[in-house]
C-alpha cells in the first residue's frame, strides 16, 4: 500500500480527490493509529484517491481553544489554513469529530473554506454507493453492539444517523444505551479535559459512561472518536469487563468485515 502526501501529489502537479486529515490522536496515539490504519485501508480498498499532509499536518488548535487559549488556536489555525489553501484543498475527511467540527465550523471565519466530512458519514456514502461490501457472517454475527454518540458529532453537529446506518450493515444487533443521541453522555475528554486530571467528584465521567455501555450487554462498544476510544476503554476496564467488551471505532468494525 502506498499512502501519499499532498506534497507528493503537488510535485506531480496533481490534486487528490480528498485530503485525509489524520489528527494528533490518530497520528501519535498507539491505539488511535489502528483507527487511522483501518480507515486508510478502507479508502485504499474502495479506490478513493486520497492524500495526507504527513509531517506538514499540525494540531487544529481545538484543545487550546476549548481551554481558553485563543492565541495558540489562532496560530495553529492560521498556519493550517495557509497550508490547506496553498494545496488547493477542497474536500477533507477526518476520523476525529473534534478536527471535523473545528475544520468545518470554525476555520471558515478565518478564511478556510472546505467541504469537511466525518469518516462515519463518508463510510455511509461509500456503502450507499455500493463501494463497500460486507462479508457474510462475520465475527459479530448475533452479538450486540452499542454505539456511543460523541458530543462533537452528535449534539455539536447533529449527526446521529449516519454512524448507526453504517453499523446496521454489520450482522449484529444494535442496542442503545439509556442516554443516547441528543441525550448522550459525554465520555469526559472534550473541552481539553483529555489533557488534565478531572476535577474532584464522586466518580469519573468515563467510569459512569463505561458502566452504562457495559450494562447494555453489548460485546462491542462502537465509537467514532479517538478520545472517546481512550476514555471508554478505561471506563470498561474499571468494570473489570475488558475481556468481554471491546471498544472499537466504526472504521475498524468496517475494515474487519470488508469483503
Amino acid at each position: 500500500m502506498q499512502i501519499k502526501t499532498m506534497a507528493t501529489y503537488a510535485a506531480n502537479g496533481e490534486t487528490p480527490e480528498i485530503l485525509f486529515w489524520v489528527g494528533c490522536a490518530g497520528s501519535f496515539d498507539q491505539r488511535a493509529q489502528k483507527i487511522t490504519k483501518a480507515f486508510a485501508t478502507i479508502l485504499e480498498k474502495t479506490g478513493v484517491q486520497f492524500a495526507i499532509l504527513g509531517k506538514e499536518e499540525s494540531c487544529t488548535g481545538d484543545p487550546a481553544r476549548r481551554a481558553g487559549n485563543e492565541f495558540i488556536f489562532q496560530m495553529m489555525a492560521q498556519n493550517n489554513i495557509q497550508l490547506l489553501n496553498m494545496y488547493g484543498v477542497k474536500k477533507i475527511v477526518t476520523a476525529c469529530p473534534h478536527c471535523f467540527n473545528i475544520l468545518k465550523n470554525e476555520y471558515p471565519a478565518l478564511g478556510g473554506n472546505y467541504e469537511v466530512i466525518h469518516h462515519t458519514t463518508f463510510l455511509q456514502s461509500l456503502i450507499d454507493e455500493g463501494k463497500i461490501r460486507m462479508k457474510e457472517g462475520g465475527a459479530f454475527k448475533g452479538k450486540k453492539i452499542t454505539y456511543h454518540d460523541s458530543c462533537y458529532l452528535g449534539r455539536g453537529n447533529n449527526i446521529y444517523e449516519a454512524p448507526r446506518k453504517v453499523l446496521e450493515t454489520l450482522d449484529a444487533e444494535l442496542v442503545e444505551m439509556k442516554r443516547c443521541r441528543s441525550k448522550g453522555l459525554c465520555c469526559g475528554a472534550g473541552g481539553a479535559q483529555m489533557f488534565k486530571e478531572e476535577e474532584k467528584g464522586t466518580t469519573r465521567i468515563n467510569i459512569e459512561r463505561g458502566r452504562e455501555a457495559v450494562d447494555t450487554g453489548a460485546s462491542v462498544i462502537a465509537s467514532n472518536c479517538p478520545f472517546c476510544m481512550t476514555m471508554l476503554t478505561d471506563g470498561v476496564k474499571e468494570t473489570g469487563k475488558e475481556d468481554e467488551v471491546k471498544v472499537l471505532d466504526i472504521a475498524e468494525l468496517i475494515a474487519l468485515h470488508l469483503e
Partner: protein
Amino acid sequence: MRILQELLFIIAFGTAVYLFSTKVRQIRRNILLGRDEDLNDHPDLRWKNVLLLAFGQKKMFRNPLVAVLHFFVYAGFIIINLEILEIILDGILGKHRLFVPVLGGLYPILISAFEVLAVLVVLGCAIFLVRRNILKLRRFMSRDLNGWPRSDANYILITEIVLMLLFLTMNAADQQMQLRGSEHYIATGNFLVSGSLASIFNSMPDGTLIAIERTCWWLHILGILAFLNYLPYSKHLHIILAFPNAYYARLEPMGEMENMPAVQREVQLMLQPELAANEPAPEGMPKFGAKDVFDLSWKNLLDAYSCTECGRCSAACPANITGKALSPRKIMMDTRDRAEAVGRNINENGAFKDDGKTLLRDHITEEELRACTTCNACVQECPVSISPLDIIVQLRRHLVMEESSAPAEWTGMFSNIENNMAPWKFSMDDRDKWAEEMNQ
C-alpha cells in the same frame, strides 16, 4: 361608593404598572451593560425559533408528561390575559362584564374555556408542587437552589393556584347571582365550571354573595398586579423573556465556538508582519475573555434573566452528574445575581462604583470552570435557548489569556502544541510513522 372603587382601582393599577415598568427599565439597563453583539441576521429563522421554542415549547416536549402540564399552566397564563383585560376595563370604568354585549353568545364559551384552563392550571401547579416538595426530584434538590430560589418556585406555584381559585369562586358567586336574576349581574349564560359550582351558594343571602364576589374580584386583580411586580425579582421572569431569548437564540451549530477577531488580527500580524505597516495603532489594551458581567455579551445577560432555574442543564451535565462542583444552572444564577448586584450599585451611586467584586471568583470559581467538557448537553437541554457554555468559555478565556491561570497539565499541553504542533510531546517527524509502516 362606585366612584371610590374606581378611584382605588385606578390608583392600584397605576402604581403597579409604574413600579413594574421602573423595574423593567432597570433590567433592560442591566442587560445592556453587556458588550455589543449583533444578533439580527436571518430574521426568518429567528421567528421560527420564537414559534417553535417559545410558543410551541418544543424543547419542553423532550419530557412529554411534564411538557403537557407545563403547557396547561402556560396556555392558562397567555389566554387568561384576555379575561384580565376585561377585569381591568371593568375596574377603570366601573362596569361589570363589559364584554358581554360585545361578544354575545361567544362570551360564555370563552369564559368556560378560561375556567377549564384555570382548573388545569390548578392541577398542573399542584402536581409541580408535589414533584418539588414530596417526590424531591434530584434537580430540584441540589444545593444551587438552597434558600430563596426554592421558596421562589413554591411561592409562584401557590400564588397561581390561589389566583385561579379566586377566579373560579368569583364566577361561581356571579353565576348564582345571575340565577337569582340580580339586575347588576348581567345574564351571560352558563359557565362550564363555575356554573356547576354555583349551587354551593344556594343558601347564602344576596348581600353575602355580593361580598364574596367583590372580594374575590379585588383579591384576584390585586393578586395579579402584585404577581406582575413579583415577576422581575423571580425566575418566573422567563414567561416574558423566553420570547426575546428564543428570537436571539444561537443559530450556529452547537459545536461551533465564537471567533475572537481581536486575537485573530494580532496573530495574523505576528505571522505576516508586513501587514502591520498599514495597521492603525490599537487603542488601549484589548481585554480577552470575561471576568465580570460587563465583559459578557448582552445575550449572555439576557440568558441569565431568562433562566427558569429548572436545572435540566445540570441534570444532563456530565460534570454535575459525576459530582463535580460545576452546575450550569448555577452559572446562570450567578450571572444574574451579579448583574442584579451591579444594577443595585448603579441605582445607589448613579454610575457603577467599583465594589471589589467580580463574577469570576466571587461567584463562579475556577474549579467549576475547569470541569466543563464543552459537551453542549446543557445547551441542548435548555428549554429557553440559554447557553451556559458560552459564559463558561469566556471566563476560561479570561483565566488563560489575562491571568495565565491554567492547570499545569494544560500549560504543558499549550507548549507542546506550540513547539511540537501536537498536544503531546511527540516529535513532528513521527507524525506519519503509521503511514510509513503501512507503506512497507
